[in-house]
């Protein structure tokens, strides 16, 4: 596992060291700000809705795309990337010599600890207690911070509109039988189920076919704190466009700055009041002294 540790993230250690003094205070402040805005903790993680995409089983028939379009009532369009009207997409990746090739299904990864939900200033994105990350258009102000924050480039915007909204896969969360894409898949490429069960299935496939899957591991088990869409691939994950993320959830990187906010509020406010009182006294004293000296 060489690719999963992002070199950029090593700076966290420096932060830890440099903030060692503040650490205790930050912990105390932690109780003021809720750690997670989502209510996802209510159902255990292994029971969350999840999808297993096995790229080695995918034949690229794109039935899933059609099913998604029809269920979400999206217009047909010819695009090579996710868009405001395309929530899922199959892409073919091929190495230069043509020896390695693999399909990859693009869609929302439904992170365990979604960066989009953490970043949204108006809580328009949130994780349902059974897993899907969903969007409340009526709250959205269109700031696009979710698009910036998502490591998978999932939230999309309809730029042609004057008042656009965010558009993304919501895992067909109101559909009784789960996602339309998984139901239609004619192969064993896309499986819908509970996250715990799917992880087990994935690991069984790895165990039965040693050496078949890249690094004998499941993408999404730990990446970015874990995702509800799990991916198996024969070729390196990065070669099919999956970002190398370590196990720390992305929202955690902002947490320290948010934790010290109450501290800053009362600290700066208090310090300023103290300085005000002090300098006021000094100024008054010097005026008094001047007056004294002025007297004969």
């Amino acid at each position: 596992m060489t690719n999963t540790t992002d070199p950029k993230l090593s700076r966290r250690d420096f932060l830890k060291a440099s903030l060692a003094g503040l650490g205790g205070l930050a912990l105390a402040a932690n109780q003021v700000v809720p750690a997670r805005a989502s209510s996802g903790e209510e159902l255990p993680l292994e029971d969350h809705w999840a999808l297993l995409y096995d790229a080695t089983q995918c034949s690229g028939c794109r039935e899933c795309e059609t099913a998604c379009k029809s269920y979400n009532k999206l217009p047909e369009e010819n695009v090579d990337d996710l868009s405001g009207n395309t929530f899922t997409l199959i892409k073919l990746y091929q190495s230069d010599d043509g020896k390695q090739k693999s399909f990859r299904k693009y869609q929302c990864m439904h992170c365990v600890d979604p960066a989009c939900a953490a970043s949204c200033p108006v809580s328009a994105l949130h994780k349902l207690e059974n897993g899907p990350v969903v969007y409340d258009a009526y709250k959205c102000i269109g700031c696009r911070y979710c698009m910036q924050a998502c490591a998978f480039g999932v939230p999309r915007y309809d730029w042609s509109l004057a008042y656009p909204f965010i558009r993304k896969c919501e895992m067909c969360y109101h559909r009784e039988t789960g996602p339309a894409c998984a139901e239609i898949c004619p192969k064993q490429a896309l499986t819908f189920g509970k996250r715990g069960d799917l992880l087990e299935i994935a690991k069984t496939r790895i165990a039965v076919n040693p050496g078949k899957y890249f690094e004998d591991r499941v993408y999404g088990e730990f990446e970015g704190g874990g995702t509800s869409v799990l991916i198996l691939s024969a070729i390196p994950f990065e070669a099919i466009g999956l970002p190398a993320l370590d196990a720390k959830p992305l929202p955690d990187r902002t947490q320290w700055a948010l934790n010290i906010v109450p501290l800053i509020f009362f600290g700066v406010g208090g310090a300023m009041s103290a300085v005000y009182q002090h300098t006021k006294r000094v100024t008054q004293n010097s005026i008094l002294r001047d007056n004294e000296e002025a007297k004969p």
Partner: protein
Amino acid sequence: MTNITLPIVKRQVSLGTAILMGLAALGAFAALFRFVDGFSKISNLSDSRPWGIWISFDLLVGVPISAGAFILAATVHIFHMDKYRPILRPTLLTGFLGYFMVILALLVDLGQPQRIWHIIIYQNLQSPLFLVGMCEMIYLIVLLLEFSPPVLEKLGWTTLLQYLRKISIPVVILGVTLSTMHQSSLGSLFLIVPFKMHPLWYTPLLPLIFLVSAISVGFGMVLFECAVSHQVFGGNVRKDIFEGLAKGMLISLGILLLIKLGDLIAAGELGRVIEGSFQSAMYLLENFVGIILPIAILLIPKLRKDIAWIFRAALLTVIGLVIARLNIGLVSMAGVPYVPHILELAVTVGLFSAGILAFGYAMKNLPLEEA
């Protein structure tokens, strides 16, 4: 043949004002386009580049260059350094106008600007942007309160003026607190994108770097305005005010340099400064122009006492901050290449021009010299 004396028509509007008015009108026109025909008609924003020049300049530069207001309000009202009182009002005015322009720019940038108040009711305490939004909204009111005395004096509303005087100190303290919070939170916005940002810029210390650079450029802008109002509006700013502000700028720039350098060394990324990429060149540029040069100038005792050189150092600090923030918003980010659309730029330039016009109008018409 009789000589007819022609009445001399005095030019009412100077050329500079006319140009600024033209640019402001063009910006308004471009913004109108966005509200009628959509984003793609006037911008090069895309799914891979959701934040462009409006965020990178209008927000990331607009907020710190208005930081002079909280620094000077604290200096005069909290630290009781009375010698800076003569320049307080013009600085508060610039601050207020700056924040007002930032909000206007955000209204163009947001997809649903009519819902900006949603930040108040659907608050998400986990989002740095929520913090930025809330602090800025409240701070705009604080600035309005801080700046209102000259307006009320002009209107002659003395009763309200007296009430305001009574709450002025808590208001100033609130202003300093809110400024500390949102200036740093602007940096926190980028903590969640380690995978997108070039390692020269990505550091957990981004909030601290944003705060300290806002303070140094706050001093820089106040110096810049003092020098300009000295020239344009015939004000007379005492030399020791220039020297004091320059000292504040030098100290904050020194701290900024230490933080940035220390962070890169501790992270083991210092070598990237000379990696030879476009990003590393831009990183060197922002620090050379905005930190190293002004520090070098102000470290020379002779130049530190020369108003012309202080002005140059201030100008460099401001330009350096503009480069630094554009680097954060545009250069450091992975994604498809992005160059702002000409009309996208027109909105930014137009708002900036409108701000300068409003400042000029207020300088002429409001009693900014404190009684």
